[in-house]
């Protein structure tokens, strides 16, 4: 590891970058997909506020998916072909979900008033479709695209768990960005989404080592188990804290941002756990990062671009969140 040359290090840098963009994607589009799914429980007026809370951000959020997939395409072309061939149909359905959602988001306020209900339904359906497909894809990916009776069950379970996680994230986003009756509702929604999300996370943590030999070896061997145990323990504490906060009046007041922040932490820790399980593979047990990587000279060219642009992107993303900080107000093109 220490004697690794820069050329050998490059694929690791890129898998890290790809992981980070997918993590940012899952968190950022996760909350807005969650808000989209929750809209089926809201009144028409509440729907407007909910859409307004994600309006300035959804587009940039989705861009992280393009970056993540782009880096897979660019840095690991062999893995890209393998992954997307395996996931051809769910990928297409996810894209259809994202297309419907993105289109409905803009159409719902511009079309005739009597069409708004239809666009809202498409927005909700698109959000659900995209989330379920992403869950399925994650499940298939984590289990190394294995064949057998247990694999589809595993992928199916994650296809349900991930939308729940998004819904919880979206609900806590609304707790942070709204007030009054909608905030009260968002707290209720969070409480409803909390148990299935926690259950899903526990199931995945148990099922992944069961389904993959290499993951089992990696997690349940001494002394590694002592070191990595901090990940599930911290995750558990954070999830409990979210639940306690939701039950307390503080979530309505000054600490309204904390459940969301804690959930982001949970997503981050789950991501760390997952990375630990998978490393150094791009496709578990099939392709390592080095086997799948493009030529060093291409990676260097992109790395220069990434090093310059990523800080700038982070800066203006931060700027945008600062501009639209605080509770949501009505969106218009004034």
């Amino acid at each position: 590891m220490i004697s690794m040359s820069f050329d050998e290090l490059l694929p690791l840098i890129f898998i890290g970058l790809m992981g980070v963009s997918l993590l940012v994607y899952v968190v950022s589009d996760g909350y807005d997909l969650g808000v989209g799914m929750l809209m089926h429980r809201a009144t028409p007026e509440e729907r407007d506020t909910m859409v307004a809370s994600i309006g300035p951000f959804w587009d940039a959020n989705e861009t992280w998916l393009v970056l993540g997939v782009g880096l897979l395409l660019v840095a690991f072309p062999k893995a890209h072909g393998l992954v997307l061939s395996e996931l051809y149909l769910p990928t297409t359905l996810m894209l259809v979900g994202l297309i419907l959602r993105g289109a409905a988001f803009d159409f719902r306020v511009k079309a005739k008033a009597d069409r708004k209900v239809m666009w809202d339904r498409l927005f909700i359906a698109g959000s659900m479709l995209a989330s379920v497909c992403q869950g399925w894809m994650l499940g298939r990916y984590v289990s190394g695209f294995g064949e057998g009776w247990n694999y589809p069950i595993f992928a199916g379970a994650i296809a349900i768990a991930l939308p729940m996680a998004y819904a919880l994230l979206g609900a806590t986003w609304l707790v942070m960005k709204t007030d009054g009756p909608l905030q009260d509702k968002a707290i209720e929604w969070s409480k409803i989404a909390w148990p299935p999300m926690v259950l899903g996370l526990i199931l995945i943590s148990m099922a992944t080592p069961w389904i993959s030999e290499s993951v089992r070896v990696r997690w349940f061997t001494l002394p590694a188990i002592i070191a990595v145990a901090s990940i599930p323990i911290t995750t558990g504490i954070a999830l409990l804290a979210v639940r306690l906060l939701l039950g307390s009046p503080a979530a309505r007041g000054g600490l309204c941002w904390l459940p969301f922040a804690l959930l982001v932490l949970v997503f981050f820790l789950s991501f760390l756990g997952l990375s630990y399980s998978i490393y150094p593979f791009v496709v578990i047990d099939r392709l390592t990062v080095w086997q799948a990587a493009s030529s060093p000279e291409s990676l260097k060219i992109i790395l220069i671009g990434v090093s310059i642009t990523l800080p700038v992107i982070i800066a203006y993303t931060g700027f945008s969140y600062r501009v639209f900080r605080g509770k949501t107000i009505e969106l218009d093109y004034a």
Partner: protein
Amino acid sequence: MDAVFLARMQFAANITFHILFPSISIALGWVLLFFRVKHLRATDPQQKLEWLRAYRLWTKVFALTFALGVVSGVTMSFQFGTNWPGYMERVGNIAGPLLGYEVLTAFFLEAGFLGVMLFGHRRVGEMVHLGATFLVAFGTLMSAFWILALNSWMQTPAGYEIVDGQFHARSWLEIIFNPSFPYRLVHMVLASALTCAFLMIGISAWQLLKGVATASASRVLRTGLIFAALAAPAQMVAGDFHGLNTLKHQPQKIAAVEGIWETTRGAPLLLFAIPDDAARTNRFEWGIPKLASLILRHDPDGELKGLNEFPSAHPPVLPLFWSFRIMVGTGILMLLVSWIGLWRHWRDGWDFAKMPRPMLGIFAGMTFAGWVATIAGWYVTEIGRQPFIVSGLIRTADVASRVPSSSIAVTFAIYVAVYLALLAAYVGVLKYMAETADKKSYASASTDLAGDPQEYQRRGEFA
């Protein structure tokens, strides 16, 4: 059906749907900046209001267009991999960085500042908002820059070397600024200018015809006419240069466009023909003698290579022949309509109330003329590269997906259904917005507070 054919059809459906929206938004971003600056600089309150109304309606059009461009663009970024996995495996070292730079320098820039541009007026100062508008327009242009760099490289590859079947970059400057890139970029930007101009012309004319126009519709219509009258001849010149460039680097494409089978001196410009690939000849040929040679060689007796010199490696002739004629025909029509329209408008003392209704009808009828020309142009370019995906180097059939053709057929059907529905919705909503623009949201336009957060705060509208 054949998986390669289906993969091509599916990709073609997607790029056809996608290009509709960038072809508007590349230019519309700059038009919005123009409207905004006009609004800010106008001293007369009435004019100020008119520019503001124009800005507001067209901001909505931009938002809608941009959203559809984004979602179809995201789809496309996946389809590079799902439909052409072999392409990335072989030329990933070259295509990858170009696509990567597009996402990093263009995609994020547009997406990052779009929120501020669309919804930020109550929250940021005027200069910051203008800056955001500029960056969105600039990002859209940058996007075109990178995508066209890659597309041009596939047409006229340069700056690479091949080691063990894999492409490697030798010179990035040569790759980006490959022989056809400048022509393609200029041609596309002008195509966007024309598409956007005719959208402005058509929608404003529709508003005038329907009696739902305010004074701002006339301003938009005039802006569009002037814009189109300048861009149309520029496009003809750019197109001519682009054609000469293509003749130099891809003579088989020109041969197919002109429907020339045998190498000829003094080739005619065919106005009508039905090229027959199987019989290797044209049926119902009708043309102007020597004109093709004159245009392409600037010599009436110049020699043009025929398709028979490129056996088994020339593009299908019929779609190319007709796409090209549709593109040029629409272009000429746009030139005539914009010039005649502007001349008539000048003669009427710059008053659209005096413009004859049939003229307004023609304007409205040409609302989407830019789309027709752009799509036809893209078909000339893309079909004209076949049977190669990288001209002369990699055949399309060799890099297509290994996904079963039934899967491709199903997803193809889903995409087409979604795209057609969205296209109908897009046009329907444009019409609805045009007809109700004033009733809906302009009631308060006279008390505009845009770009003045302090004013909002004073009024307590700003938490």
